């Protein structure tokens, strides 16, 4: 059965919510009472539950199986965390209640901040960024603020390796920096010589991901850090791949100045189909004074949110990044995850994540072509060399995986590798599941190389809720909302079949 849009089920006269009769009053709407209907569809509760249940059944998810997306860390999302986030003391408190009535909530933010700074070996953390990219913005603002404070506002260049996430250059550019790409070496790491050469007096910062997006640890990171600092610049580390080293290496020991942490990657808060995220940023001592408001303070009177600068106006804070105090719901989940694992468990997380990725690489290299030699960290990268002359692209290969019951890996990223396939199994997959996955991948690779399967690959997927979708059409003639004139599926195949 096709699932209609809610608008196609609708009846204005129906509602899935019963509300009491409003008391009779003279309205005080300043003459601005709405005229005419909004047009919202009305469904009864049973229909709503069925609609969203059926929609959900068209989704792949971590709960369905292995989710090998590189750089996205699709690990198990514990349900304990969901339960904790829904405790009334966390889920049902208002951000502007008197602070005396939310001491435990502020304490929780403080406790999470303590875990983050201790784990990373950094002295401070800004908790309010709403997502990883928001954290990048926060960190780069702090760098801009520090430069401004020291009279070095002229530093307007930011160095970014070619393999970086798109958010890195986008963030730098948004803040008015000019982005200078740094090449990669043949072994998939940043070209330290090129980097040093670029480190002039115009350079504000370098933005480096470590482990990098090729799944490799930047061996020379200490040397990079020293050079950056010597050049008077700041070292921004993209923490998207923190899962590979959490509990085993402290980023603070690497000489970085700031790093955002995706709580939905390393610390298991759910991706939720694309958000909400949460991106606290740990800061070095030289950036800490510029952290955004508010922050958490503990003093004799208890826990306190430092929300506003003093009347003296001597505040160095870079400002406020969002209303209220950050993604509390994600904080609770992340802290529940950290407490569950503990320092010992988090170390094991990193080890198992790296072990799983190397195991997959070891098994797959029988048929696929690893992009680089040597061990990887938490994700393994292949190029499309093994598909040469097959007429099958990375995309085709990925779509064929869907018919085998898997979500595709990350494709065509990082850009430095041709037809990249980036696989991150995460530590929450069993050896059994990895073996099943590897068996399938090897089978597909052999099939691809057989020389007779190109058409089958191009036709994939066949078994998914939809076959390949026309993205060009979508972009050329954007239909971004339903309108009554849209043709529903009621006139489509189903109706015909029934006749």
């Amino acid at each position: 059965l096709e699932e209609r849009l809610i608008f196609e089920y609708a009846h204005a006269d129906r509602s899935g919510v019963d509300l009491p009769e409003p008391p009779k009053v003279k309205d005080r709407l300043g003459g601005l009472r709405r005229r005419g209907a909004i047009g919202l569809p009305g469904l009864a509760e049973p229909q709503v539950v069925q609609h969203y249940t059926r929609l959900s059944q068209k989704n792949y998810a971590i709960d369905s199986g292995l989710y090998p997306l590189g750089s996205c860390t699709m690990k198990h999302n514990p349900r304990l965390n969901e339960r904790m986030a829904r405790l009334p003391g966390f889920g049902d408190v208002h951000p502007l209640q008197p602070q005396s009535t939310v001491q435990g909530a502020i304490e929780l933010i403080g406790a999470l901040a303590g875990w983050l700074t201790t784990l990373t070996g950094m002295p401070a953390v800004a908790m309010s960024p709403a997502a990883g990219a928001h954290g990048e913005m926060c960190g780069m603002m702090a760098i801009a603020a520090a430069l401004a404070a020291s009279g070095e506002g002229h530093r307007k260049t930011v160095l970014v390796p070619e393999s970086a996430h798109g958010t890195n250059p986008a963030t730098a550019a948004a803040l008015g920096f000019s982005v200078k790409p740094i090449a990669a070496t043949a072994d998939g790491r940043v070209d330290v010589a090129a980097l040093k050469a670029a480190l002039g007096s115009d350079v504000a910062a370098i933005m480096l991901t470590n482990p990098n997006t090729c799944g490799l640890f930047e061996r020379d990171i200490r040397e990079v850090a020293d050079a950056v600092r010597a050049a008077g610049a700041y070292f921004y580390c993209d923490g998207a791949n923190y899962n590979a080293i959490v509990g085993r290496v402290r980023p603070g020991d690497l000489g970085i100045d700031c790093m955002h942490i995706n709580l939905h990657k390393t610390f298991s808060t759910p991706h939720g189909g694309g958000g909400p995220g949460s991106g606290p940023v740990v800061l070095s001592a030289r950036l800490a004074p510029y952290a955004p408001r508010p922050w958490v303070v503990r003093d004799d009177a208890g826990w306190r949110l430092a929300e506003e600068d003093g009347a003296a106006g001597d505040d160095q804070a870079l400002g406020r990044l969002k209303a209220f105090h950050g993604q509390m719901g994600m904080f609770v989940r992340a802290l529940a995850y950290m407490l569950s694992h503990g320092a010992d468990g988090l170390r094991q997380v990193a080890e198992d994540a790296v072990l799983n990725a190397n195991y997959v690489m070891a098994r797959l290299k029988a048929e696929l072509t690893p992009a680089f030699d040597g061990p990887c960290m938490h994700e393994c990268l292949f190029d499309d060399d093994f598909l040469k002359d097959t007429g099958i692209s990375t995309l085709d290969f990925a779509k064929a995986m869907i018919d085998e019951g898997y979500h595709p890996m990350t494709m065509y990223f990082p850009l430095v590798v041709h037809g990249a396939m980036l696989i991150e199994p995460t530590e929450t997959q069993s050896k059994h599941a990895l073996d099943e996955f590897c068996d399938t991948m090897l089978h597909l690779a052999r099939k691809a190389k057989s020389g007779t399967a190109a058409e089958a690959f191009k036709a994939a997927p066949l078994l998914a809720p939809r076959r390949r979708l026309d993205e060009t059409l979508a972009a050329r003639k954007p239909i971004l909302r339903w309108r009554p004139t849209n043709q529903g599926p009621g006139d489509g195949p189903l109706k015909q079949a029934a006749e």
Partner: protein
Amino acid sequence: MRYLPLTDADRREMLATIGVRSIDDLFRDVPTSVRLPGPIAGLSSHMGEMEVERRLGRMAARNLAASDAPFFVGAGAYKHHVPASVDHLIQRGEFLTSYTPYQPEITQGTLQYLFEFQTQVTMLTGMEVANASMYDGSTGASEAVLMANRVTRRNKAVLSGGLHPHYRAVIETTARWQGFRVAGAPVDADGIEDLAALVDKEVSCVVVQNPSVFGHVRDLAPLAQACHAAGALLVVVVTEVVSLGLLTPPGDMGADIVVCEGQSLGVGLNFGGPYVGLFATREKLMRQMPGRLVGETVDADGKRGFVLTLSTREQHIRREKATSNICTNAGLCALAFTIHLTLLGERGFTRLAELNHATAVRAAERLARVPGVKVLNDSFFNEFTVMLPKPAAPVVEALAERRILAGVPVSRLLPHAPLCADLLLVAVTETVSDDDIEALAAGLEEVL
């Protein structure tokens, strides 16, 4: 450890397959000087669910939950009743643990609800197109200004004195570091400002909140005309989306961009986050929008389907030339929002709005009878400003000790505005009972 499926036997076998002797061999690219020999000091070891529940439960118990007290706190986040089925549905693993729908063939669930969400947002706001959500209302407002700057190629934003101070602070932070100017109107507790006077040829947009943070409801059509005459855009911010069930939508008053905080529907208070930002605009400005967009298309069999579209605006394609650095949206909160709104439907949503307004009017009438209390608003939706005969913050604190959460003292938001020290914002939603109103009034009579 319960989340880690590998056994020691597995690990040994896997190391052998890889061809290394120990896990350390896989970390050999990490300089030895920074490799930690054991668990990081100063942190607890792993613990079971029972123990985690005890620890976090103790923290949770130290907070006064909104449902456990007469509750009048608003100012940008509102307590509404969320039907049980909303939370049930968003917790389905296929929604909760799914990634961004970059593989549309196996994420039609997410894509379809986002398409439905976008449509509902256009209906509510009276606009033509909407994106698939922003982090929240405040960051959405800041993105709206950046978009207006791009569209108009101007560099100055006028901010209303009725704009939520946090929103204003977020825009100012963006302005400071991303390099544009802000002209802020004075605090407008009485709802009488004339923003049109501030609009000149340098202005990219005027940002105005309706109802204002002080609760005043205003006809923005004249302001829209003034903006358009000067080549500027009108950005309308709505922090209480339920008001759109009863008030003329911003689109009908001439808004070019509408940003709403969507927390009121489906999401809950959560001590400030995560929330969900709604972002809507005119069709002709579509390609300057930030954030993800879902569009309708067809699959290889000609069946209707949905995809993320116009992603050439976005950072993962355009990198430093992107319209915004935003990568995430607030997918799951958008889902909660759209489910709640679907449950309500036209009839439920408009009735919810009526119920909020009527209850708030009752509360305003009752509080106006408390000696020394003055209600500042002629017009409002479900939140209004009262002037007390003394500073509001200690009054609120005194009432909190009586387990009444009376509202937000304006001084919490504007600590450096001495004229506002006696002002209190009082929000009244459908969750407020007559008994609650009476408790607040009686409490005020007691502590004033």
